[in-house]
């Protein structure tokens, strides 16, 4: 099994790429490609970065699965597969695969018009929330003000490790 978090993250990326492929197969080209850009290009890298910058070493490797967790895992997987099966069985009646041929997928232009017309409020609110999150992240990431000359001279510099620790605690407190 995958014991290393980075491997797990990369596998997750692969599955996201697979989902994007499903979207494209279903005729939703725009959605699939957007999924690829957002999840493979950005979110996966964020996750990987987060793993790399994690301070706690014990978080980086996952304990080998015990017999009990095996059972749980298989049970959950079976449950999910069952749900999917039922779902598929019901939709089969809708007449063949939606496929690229006569797909119900939206044209990019229609998608844009919907987002800017009918769902504009929801779209803008989501945008606002994301902007607030972005600004918050920038504020969190800003370095704490330190005396300017600290960078140049050894004597004025905080002793090794001090600056780093202070920043870390500050970051956690904020």
């Amino acid at each position: 099994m995958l014991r290393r978090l980075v491997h797990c993250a990369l596998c997750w990326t692969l599955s996201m790429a697979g989902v994007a492929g499903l979207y494209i197969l279903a005729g939703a080209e725009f959605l699939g490609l957007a999924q690829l850009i957002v999840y493979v290009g950005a979110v996966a890298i964020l996750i990987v970065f987060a793993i790399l910058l994690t301070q706690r070493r014990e978080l980086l490797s996952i304990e080998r699965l015990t017999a009990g967790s095996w059972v749980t895992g298989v049970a959950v997987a079976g449950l999910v597969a069952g749900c999917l099966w039922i779902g598929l069985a019901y939709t089969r009646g809708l007449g063949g695969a939606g496929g690229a041929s006569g797909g119900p997928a939206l044209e990019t232009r229609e998608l844009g018009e919907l987002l800017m017309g009918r769902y504009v409020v929801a779209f803008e609110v989501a945008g606002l929330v994301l902007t607030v999150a972005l600004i918050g992240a920038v504020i969190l990431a800003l370095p704490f003000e330190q005396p300017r000359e600290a960078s140049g001279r050894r004597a004025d510099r905080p002793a090794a490790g001090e600056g780093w620790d202070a920043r870390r605690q500050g970051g956690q407190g904020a």
Partner: protein
Amino acid sequence: MIDRGGSRRDECEAGGEDAGRLEVSMGPQHPSTHGVFRMDVVLEGETVVRLKPVFGYLHRNHEKIAEQTTYLGSMPYTDRLDYFCSLTSNWAYALAVEKLAGLAVPERAEYLRVITAELTRLQNHACQMGFMLQDLGAMGTPMMYAFREREKILDLFESLTGSRMMCNYMRFGGCRADAPAGWIEAARGVVGDFPRFLDEYEALLATNEIVMARTQGVGVLPRDLAINASASGPVLRASGVGYDIRKTDRYGVYDRFDFRVPVGDHGDCYDRFMLRLLEMRESVKILEAALEQIPAGPVIDGKVKLRNFKPRAGEAYGRIEGPKGEIGFYLISDGSASPYRYRVRPPSLINLTALEEMCLGQKVADVVVILGSIDIVLGEVDR
């Protein structure tokens, strides 16, 4: 740390004690350490928080070898101290021995010494700028241009001394050989063409935005620290101290030439870079005057017995303004054929002592630029 049965890989992954820090050993084989120099750097992200220079990968026992050989026998070894500027090392050593033995130098030899020393300064500074730009990532083009000029000067050296790099040209009481016919004219041609190269270099690089962004405010060496670290040469002058041994000692015939000593105000890499450019312009002025004024006459005092050379007991320190700073030789004679004590004051090593102060708080990419701006040669640092 708690061992949870993780493999060595996991430890590696977590970066040892503190995952935020990365300890990198730059060198001894690293494209930008100018030889076999090593820096143990501790990085926080890309910022340097600790830097420990490690020397000695090119320790060639220069001083011990010199104490076992004759005075003249050390002359070829001084070539290999700073292998970019063999002629200035020659001169400094010859000066020390001449002081020790009380020898005078004929006037034409003094002029030849000045000419070769300034030509050495030209090629050293040009190549140093090329190397620094290489460290900045300029794919070799500035270096190629610098080496193109260097080859012209090396041709002059070769026809004068018989060797491109290891000239072994100075002798106690003069120079080994007179300039061959037409050499002065050839030198005049090379020197006359040099300002064009300087203009080209300055136009291409001095106001380049990337060069300015990468070097201005980077690797600042404050004035008092530069003095305390006994830095010399362009590194010291960039920190705002107008100290030039050519002016203070007036050794050789430097008092006959009109030249200025440029001084920087910021002490950063850009100042060190620009000072070398300005110094080259002054060197060209000296060279033009020297090539004009050079008198006829002998180039070596014929009475000096080089073969069985035994100066009387005593001590002497001879120093000159080399391209990298004050290069000096300290000799103690016990009256025998080889020095009792032989000591080099290597400008590269002494300028390098403030390296950590300059690098702390900078990015790892700046470290190589700062190192390049100091202009070290490992042959001289490690001796």
